[in-house]
Structures are given as C-alpha cells and as structure tokens.
C-alpha cells in the first residue's frame, strides 16, 4: 500500500515518465480515488511541458514528407506511398500575465475544440471500405485473438482490430510482415487499435501480430497472438 507522501513523490516522477509500469498503475489508481492529486499532477505536467519547450530553437519545421505520410494515413483519397515499412517499427506548453491569460486561454480552448471537432469520425473505416470495394485482399488473422488485414495491391494495408482485447498501457500490438523471406515490422499499433494503416513494399507472404512493450521492438521475441498466410 503506497501512502500519500509516496504518491506525492511519485507524481513528479510520473509526470516525467520516470516510473515503472507498476508505479504508473498505482499513481493512476490514486488519481482515481483522490481528485485533489490531479491538480498536483497538472502542475508537474505543466512544468514538464515547459522543459520540453526548452529543447526548441526557432525553426523546427519537419520535412514535407512527414505531413504527406500523415495525410496518406488519414485520407486515402490523397494517398501517397508511405516510407518503407521498416521505418514504421517505431510507430511505436506558455502563460501570459494573469488578467490577459483568462481571455487568451478562453479563445484557445474554443479554437482547440473547434479544431478537434474536425477530427471526429473515422475516416480510416471509410478507407477500409473503399479498399475492399477496390479489390483489396482481406486476410483473417487467427490465433489467441482475432483481427483482419486488408491489403491493397499497391502495398497499402489496414489492420482492423475491433475485436482485439485492449492491452495495458505499457504494452502494444505490433504487426509483422514476412516480405521476401524477411520478417519486418509493419507497424506499432498501440494498446487498443481499432483500425491502423500501414504500407509494405515487396512480396508479402504472411502477417503476424505480437504483443510487445510500449514503443515496439525491432526484433520480436514473442510468439504471435494471431497470424495469416497471404494466399493460403
């Protein structure tokens, strides 16, 4: 049983992402039981965000290809080839003076809500339907769990994981493809993937799904929880 003093200490380390998975769960249980801890945590998170800001210089614009890949993943009508799949292996805050801040933040919140409302909906589900209509191959992945891969001829694919049980936050599903006799990561999908887009280049002979530590791995040492052979 962790006492309040220890939780107070852990909250700071938690905000820095510096606690174990077990301690993370303990902190989150405590947060659920004592809402006053949330305010303490938010202060630490704001400090952590300021530290992240300290890493930035003036111009940090990412290469244009990054946005093209994001756009391709969320809108298949503007799809462009994603980066080679082995790269997908990793797929795995400023205040003003007090009076002015109130108005500024109010505007920001309204703007953010408006912006985020644009994100609602599930364009990936639509993309999967369109891919099926266009003749993409549907491959049921079977094993301890069930999922489906929908793979188009151009290598664009979707992992449909509605039936997958949600993992703990420190775990992730990872999809692997056997391409030209090499096992490569097709994507780190997170602990609760509904639909995830990926892209593979080459002659794919099989897919496998594993459970890995959050962030994914380069080489899996886990048994597949579901798999399918292409063309079987």
């Amino acid at each position, binding site marked *: 049983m962790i006492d309040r003093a220890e939780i107070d200490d852990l909250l700071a380390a938690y905000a820095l992402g510096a606690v174990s998975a077990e301690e993370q769960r303990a902190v989150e249980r405590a947060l659920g039981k004592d809402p006053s801890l949330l305010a303490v945590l938010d202060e630490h998170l704001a400090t952590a*965000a300021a530290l992240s800001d*300290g890493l930035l210089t003036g111009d940090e*614009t*990412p290469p244009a290809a990054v946005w093209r890949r994001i756009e391709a993943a969320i809108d298949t009508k503007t799809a462009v080839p994603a980066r080679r799949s082995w790269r997908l292996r990793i797929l*795995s805050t400023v205040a003003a003076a007090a009076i002015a801040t109130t108005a500024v933040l109010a505007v920001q919140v309204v703007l953010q*809500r408006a912006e*985020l409302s644009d994100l609602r909906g599930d364009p990936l589900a639509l993309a999967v339907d369109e891919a099926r209509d266009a003749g993409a191959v549907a491959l049921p992945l079977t094993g301890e769990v069930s999922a489906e891969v929908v793979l188009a001829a151009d290598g664009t694919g979707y992992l449909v994981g509605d039936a997958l049980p949600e993992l703990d936050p420190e775990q992730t599903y990872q999809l692997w493809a056997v391409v030209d006799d090499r096992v490569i990561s097709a994507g780190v999908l997170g602990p609760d993937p509904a639909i995830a887009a990926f892209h593979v280049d080459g002659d794919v002979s099989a897919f496998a799904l594993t459970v890995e530590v959050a*962030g994914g791995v380069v080489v899996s040492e886990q048994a597949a929880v579901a798999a399918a052979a292409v063309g079987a």
Partner: protein
Amino acid sequence: MARLYDRYGGAVHGVARRLVRDDALAEDVTQEVFLRLWRRPQRFDPSRGTLRAFLLRDAHGRSIDLIRSEESRRAREEHDAYRSSTEAPGPEHEVWEAVRSEKVRAALAALPELERDSVVLAYFGGLSYREVAERLGQPEGTTKSRIRAAMQRLRGTLMSEGVAEA
C-alpha cells in the same frame, strides 16, 4: 488536422529530434503523435492544459519509449558496451546540451546539482528514477524526493519567467 500540424508540427518534431537525436526517428515520432491525435482526440482534455502542451508531452512520451526500445536493442547487440565505456562523456552531459532555451537552462542551473542531474537524466535522458538513482549512486527514495523538490522549484522559477503555465 492540417491547421494543427502547421501550428504544432514544428514543436513536436523539434522535441522529438532533440530527444531521439535521429532525424528519421524524430519524423516517425512526429507522425505517430499526430496520428494518435487523429485517432483518439478525446485523449486531449482542454480543461487540463493547452493542446500545445498535450502534444509536446505526447512527443516526449513517444520519444522516451523509443529511446528505451533502442537502448534495449543496443544492449542486446553491443553487450552493453556503451554503458561500460569509461571515457565517453555521461549521458547527462549529452542531454544537457540539448536544452536550448536560456531560461530553462538557467532554471535548471539554479537547482542543487543532484536535483538538476536527477531531472535531466529522467526527463531528457529517458531514465526511470530508479535508473537515475543507480546512475548517480544515490538511494531511490532520496532520488524520488529530489525529483519532486526539483519540479516544485522549477515550477516557481519557470512561472516567474513566464515559461510555464499557471
């Protein structure tokens, strides 16, 4: 989404690039952060901070996951040669160099040395507080308390400098 990316993509990518110190990996982190926002927008709660702070936090978290993953790989492949090197500068020096903001550097520099090293290794270096304790040769409980004390001091300093949110 394009508007959000235009507004925050640079900051997200910048944080990732400083932390993972690899352009290609930072691009992967940036892509992942925005796709996570797209797929799970409900994870952002405007009552708990700005969207910018949320995205930077996510960029930090994804980057740390990556650092830990990459460190695991290196540990397997190189038999921990990196960590056993006695001539290479410690990672606290490398990550310290990544801090570009003079205000943040000054706030960190004003901390007692062990508090500063604890926060730098944990937040910028991706170490757990237990790993920090081991690295610094300090008790785990003491390190945990130092991190808390450091965060409270930093909050005061960074708020007075107008860097941290109230």
